[in-house]
């Protein structure tokens, strides 16, 4: 998508033969089928109004998916994402309610969230805590912070002064599409570039593929792990700001379960939870499938409970397909290896 446009056949070949590309192509087909099905069920599905709504719905999932994918690439996991979303939402809203300039509030919020990411990274890399436990801890702490900043109450409306903030992060439209979606896309483009084309990206893949070999090759694996957690916290923070901008208030339980949605978007898109493989393009497709399902099932009148069940099944099936394909491949590889 981003780099296949170069005419160099080596680049194209490289693009198609990327690990995880197979899964991405499969789920893209799945996404198209889903859209067609929902288009048949509901004639309003393909209206421009619904599509702009859909894109707005996809934005938060895509953002947190990018962060979680980064962490998964290194073979770790970040469970604190949802709480950081809540923290971001609450801190920014509380500050704005107290009359702090919205942009200053954004900077303060950003700083607070990045600290959580940094702590996650340090705990996992230097302190060698299992990522599941470390981020479970920070998840609880961050949620606690979200509750404490406004004395265990949701905030009032962030007020008229925050109009520009709300427009920038959410309701403003460029080319008829909500700015939330554009923010998500721009962030995705940047991180996709970093992953695919830069030294940092290579270091992330190498760390996830074989941390010992990476270390011996001169990769600073501790820095790399801290980096991905900070990226994840950054994405969660922006998601929190978008949430705040969309409702105009701070809600303490904003972002609940988002870390799991992020895992879902990543793995549907072919990012391996074992690290070292997958591409960020897959995360876009994964997040889109997630959004289309939510939107389409809602349109089709399915109650929330049924939606959850269907989406859960799809996550399992998507990963199962990947596992089946992978074991098939590894068998043939083993033979060549002899």
């Amino acid at each position, binding site marked *: 998508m981003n780099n296949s446009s170069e005419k160099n056949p*080596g*680049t194209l*070949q*490289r693009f198609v*033969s990327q*690990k995880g590309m197979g899964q991405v192509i499969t789920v893209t087909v799945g996404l198209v089928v889903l859209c067609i099905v929902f288009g048949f069920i509901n004639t309003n599905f393909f209206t421009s109004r619904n599509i702009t709504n859909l894109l707005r719905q996809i934005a938060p999932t895509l953002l947190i998916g990018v962060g979680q994918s980064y962490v998964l690439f290194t073979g770790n996991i970040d469970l604190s994402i949802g709480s950081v979303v809540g923290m971001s939402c609450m801190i920014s809203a509380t500050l704005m309610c107290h009359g702090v300039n919205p942009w200053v509030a954004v900077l303060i919020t950003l700083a607070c969230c990045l600290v959580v990411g940094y702590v996650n990274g340090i705990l996992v890399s230097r302190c060698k805590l299992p990522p599941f436990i470390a981020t479970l801890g920070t998840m609880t702490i961050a949620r606690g912070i979200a509750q404490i900043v406004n004395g265990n109450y949701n905030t009032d409306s962030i007020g008229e002064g925050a109009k520009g903030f709300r427009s920038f992060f959410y309701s403003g439209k460029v080319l008829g599409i909500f700015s939330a979606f554009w923010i998500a896309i721009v962030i995705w483009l940047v991180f996709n*570039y*970093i992953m695919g*084309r*830069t*030294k*940092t990206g*290579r*270091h992330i*893949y*190498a760390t996830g*593929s*074989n941390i*010992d*070999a*990476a*270390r*011996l*090759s*001169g*990769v*600073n694996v501790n820095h790399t792990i801290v980096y991905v957690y900070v990226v994840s916290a950054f994405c969660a923070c922006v998601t929190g700001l978008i949430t705040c901008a969309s409702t105009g208030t701070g809600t303490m339980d904003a972002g609940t379960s988002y870390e799991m949605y992020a895992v879902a978007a990543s793995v549907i898109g072919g990012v391996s939870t074992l690290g*070292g*493989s997958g591409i960020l393009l897959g995360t876009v497709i994964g997040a889109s499938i997630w959004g289309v399902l939510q939107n389409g099932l809602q349109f089709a009148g399915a109650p929330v409970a049924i939606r959850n069940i269907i989406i859960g099944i799809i996550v399992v099936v998507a990963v199962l397909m990947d596992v089946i394909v992978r074991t098939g491949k590894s068998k*043939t*590889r083993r*033979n*060549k*290896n*002899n």
Partner: protein
Amino acid sequence: MEGNKNHIPAGQELVRMTGITKQFPGVKALEEVRFNLYSGEVLSLLGENGAGKSTLMKILSGVYQRDDGEIILFGEKIREWDANKAKDAGIAIIHQELNMCTHLSVAENIFLGREIVKKGRLDNGRMNEETKQILDKLNIDIDPAVQVGDLAVSKQQMVEIAKALSQNARVLIMDEPTSALTSKEIDELFKIIHQLKADGIGIVYISHRLEELQHIADRVIIMRDGKFIKEMPYDINRMDEIIANMVGHEIKEKFPRVNRKTGKKILEVKNLNAGRLVREINLELYEGEIVGIAGLMGAGRTETTRAIFGIDEKESGQIFIDGKEVKINSPIDAIRAGLVLAPEDRKKDGLCTGLSISDNIALPNLDMLSGGILGTVNRKKEKEIVDQSVSSLRIKLPNAQVAAGSLSGGNQQKVVVAKWLVRNSRVVIFDEPTRGIDVAAKVEIYNLMNQLKQSGIGVMFVSSEMPEVMGMSDRIIVMCDGRITGEFMIEDATQDKILTKATQFEKNK
């Protein structure tokens, strides 16, 4: 326990495979291969990496299905075949990587999946007792109740052999069983193999260490490129013929020595201490020389290289490069100082096997390949250095985008080395550079070491293979129990002298 049922008179044909063909997508792994095995013999299955030995054995043990051909087992023709049927029929494989539950006891492992149950509860007493009987029969001194993970690798392997026998194995396939053993442990293993032979078990022995064969092999079958090449009785006087058949051409020089006058001192290590196995190490390395580090398994050779390279923490000591002291606290520092290490365990430390060959070669060199605020990798430059290393090392590969893990052992080793040669390093340290790779690939690694030497780089290599140390080094350092116990110029070195120093343990320990 059921030991006597096992006994088969020697010389009966246990296995006969004819016309075995196996096609994998893109490669013909086996073509019309024939193979047979008699009871009470050790058959050495020989061939380079990728010759098809493992594939053939996987077909015999039911892991792979054959496309064509016939298998006759104990006189009966086999049709339907899978891993469980093979196991029931008495075919067992001892893999290079052991398949043990390390947290369970020896007895629990041996009875895994067929535990003895009394009144709905596990009968641990009886399982331990029967395990003891099996181990005693093999003269293996291991407590059945001890955790497998606490045993040395050699003992674990023996437990695995015992497990196979307890399941009435009549055909035992051993794939590189000695690659992780010390010479004493290898002797013990050979004793067990002799005993199994006497019991009438047919043993297929796969190993790259040809010098081992003289102790055990009765017959050899040689394969090359997925084809049957030759079958012959084992004869130590015909080793050249055996090797020529494996490689397909004569290897003239096994250790191609080159001469170069050594220059000035590059590396100096002073009073290095790091843990129990690195004690007061002092060594020097000069331009254009190859220093071999000899010693027994566990002598601290690998640990010393790791400490120098900054992987493990140093307690004390100084490192000088070109006379200037350098602080090396991480591999990053070491690489900056001009040091390079090709580690012992390719899969664990050397390669990101899931990533492409190109990614692996580029990884340590990204600092030279990237630029800009974000550190964008210059793909053109990257391709250049990858192509250059691949061709200069003659790495055989379909293209540089395939996963590094899909290459054969020898080629993987070349990739491990290749990724470092792009840099202008001063010192290259190899740890067991030829472990588990075939004869031809070994010679290529030797040539590479010589190339480095001639370009004035200091080469240091750790090796457990005495002929290799004697054949390649200009100077030999011997280690024992974490200390340097001897140092010889090659002219003065003999195997005896090295071995004496390698076993010079401190008495008061």
